[in-house]
């Protein structure tokens, strides 16, 4: 008689957490940001969120099918990619372009690299960078927040037929606070407005405070490694602070730098994407500092008003090199034999 007893190797217990739970909490944390964005920009953003998320999930499913892998849409990671992609796009971005970007984000950014966990670049940002390069005009056309009829009418460009040039939205366009600073020679936005989010910008870069709050929830929940936002924001503030101290007339103050653009969103939700960031704590510090620094350099000295997206992608690209030099210090390798 052989008792029905399993043979398993230790450990026999496991911390009660899973990929799915982590991802679900990120989705949860993103919902308030999405809701506020819909409140600010209306049904155009609602449609944008729906389209990118649906496309991301369907693309994920398609590639699972093609490569004969089990379905992975249950892990919510494609949903995050979809939501975050929409949050980085301009509110008036045509839906068909959004769908193309979401397809690229998952197909090129994730599936072809082997799927969850293997993507060296942040898929949502890869999709966003693709959108910026493919449709540069639509991707840098910003509309005002809080238009009166935003809940009843779509912005004219949103519903452009697939592959066609979107209708002009000149009537609603405005400059983002960063573009105003860069191209029109000065800060024209109250920092408080940046905090509460009554500003133009991409769908998710509205309220710095709200993003901060949702991000902190994730940090406390353990879904985001606290070192990422701390190093990114700290390094951005420090870099900006140095320039501001040297020449306050030319450069904006660090608080403006932190609260404007997509820096909060990027620091808490995108630089923190685990697959495309280093695994070692020392590596994360280097990575975060690099991203914060590059963001400010691109904002202050580059041709573009906003640099978070490129800074994070460049940070992603550097991850393997960073991990080369930033392995954990191993126990017992200390010189001088202890005593």
């Amino acid at each position, binding site marked *: 008689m052989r008792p029905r007893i399993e043979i398993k190797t230790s450990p026999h217990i496991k911390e009660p957490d899973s990929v799915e739970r982590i991802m679900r909490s990120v989705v949860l944390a993103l919902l308030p940001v999405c809701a506020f964005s819909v409140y600010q920009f209306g049904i155009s953003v609602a449609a944008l969120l729906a389209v990118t998320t649906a496309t991301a999930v369907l693309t994920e499913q398609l590639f699972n099918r093609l490569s004969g892998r089990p379905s992975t849409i249950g892990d919510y990671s494609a949903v995050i990619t979809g939501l975050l992609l929409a949050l980085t796009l301009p509110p008036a971005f045509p839906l068909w*372009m959004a769908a193309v970007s979401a397809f690229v984000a998952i197909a090129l950014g994730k599936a*072809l690299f082997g799927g969850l966990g293997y993507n060296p670049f942040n898929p949502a940002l890869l999709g966003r960078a693709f959108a910026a*390069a*493919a*449709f*540069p005009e639509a991707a840098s056309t910003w509309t005002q927040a809080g238009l009166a009829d935003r809940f009843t009418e779509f912005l004219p460009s949103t519903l*452009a037929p697939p*592959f*066609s*040039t979107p209708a002009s939205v000149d009537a609603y366009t405005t400059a983002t606070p960063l573009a105003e600073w860069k191209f029109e020679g000065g800060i024209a936005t109250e920092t408080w407005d940046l905090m509460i989010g009554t500003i133009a910008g991409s769908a998710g870069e509205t309220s710095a405070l709200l993003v901060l709050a949702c991000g902190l929830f994730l940090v406390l929940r353990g879904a985001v490694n606290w070192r990422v936002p701390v190093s990114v924001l700290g390094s951005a503030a420090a870099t900006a602070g140095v320039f501001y101290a040297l020449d306050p007339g030319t450069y904006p103050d660090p608080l403006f730098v932190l609260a404007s653009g997509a820096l909060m969103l990027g620091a808490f939700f995108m630089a923190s994407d685990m697959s495309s960031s280093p695994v070692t704590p020392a590596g994360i510090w280097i990575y975060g500092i690099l991203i914060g620094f590059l963001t400010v350099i691109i904002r202050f000295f580059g041709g573009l008003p906003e640099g978070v997206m490129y800074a994070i992608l460049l940070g992603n690209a550097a991850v393997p090199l960073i991990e080369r030099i930033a392995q954990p210090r191993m126990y017992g390798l200390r010189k001088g034999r202890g005593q």
Partner: protein
Amino acid sequence: MAAKREQEPITMDTFLSGLWRENPVFVMLLGMCPVLAVTNTTENALAMGLATTFVLVCSTGLVSILRDFIPKEVRIASYIVIIATFVTVVDYAIQAISLEIYNALGAFIQLIVANCMILGRAEAFASRQPLGKTLVDALGVGAGFTLALLCLGTVRELLGAGEILGIQVFADGFEPWVIMLLPPGGFFVLAGWLLLFAWIKERQNQRAAAAKEATADGR
């Protein structure tokens, strides 16, 4: 490989192999720089393809003629000089034919010198084969190279500008995908073609394996 061919007569296969089976770009991954750099329009791709083919045919031809005359030790040096000469010829010829194309291709005409496909052909084929065969081979490889350039050029121009050879293809109001004309687009389109070929090949292999299994079962 080369030794075997020596006995073989010139066949269609000598030409086709360079065009397809041993396509310099898609299979051998040679001469990638111009393939990526000057294929943002079909016209440029075609011009570059023809220019490269011209240099390839002329220089391998000359190498083949001189093959018994050139001592081994200065082989590579001689080839480089011969190739550079023909590139200079093409460079001036294109300037004379059309400044516009010349400006569009920029330094890449002169960079044909560095295209390892040409030196490779001179070294591996022309230095051992008679003139006739060398020319057919060079034409095949040149055609294969031009084909690859066109594969990229058409896709990039079509999506990036809605045109092919400057002729509008899509209806008015088509929104061009600017990325196709930018550097990343070059990488992505070439990667796309390679993915497509790999996928087709995999399907073929699967089918062949399935067919084999079926016949094996039948017995």
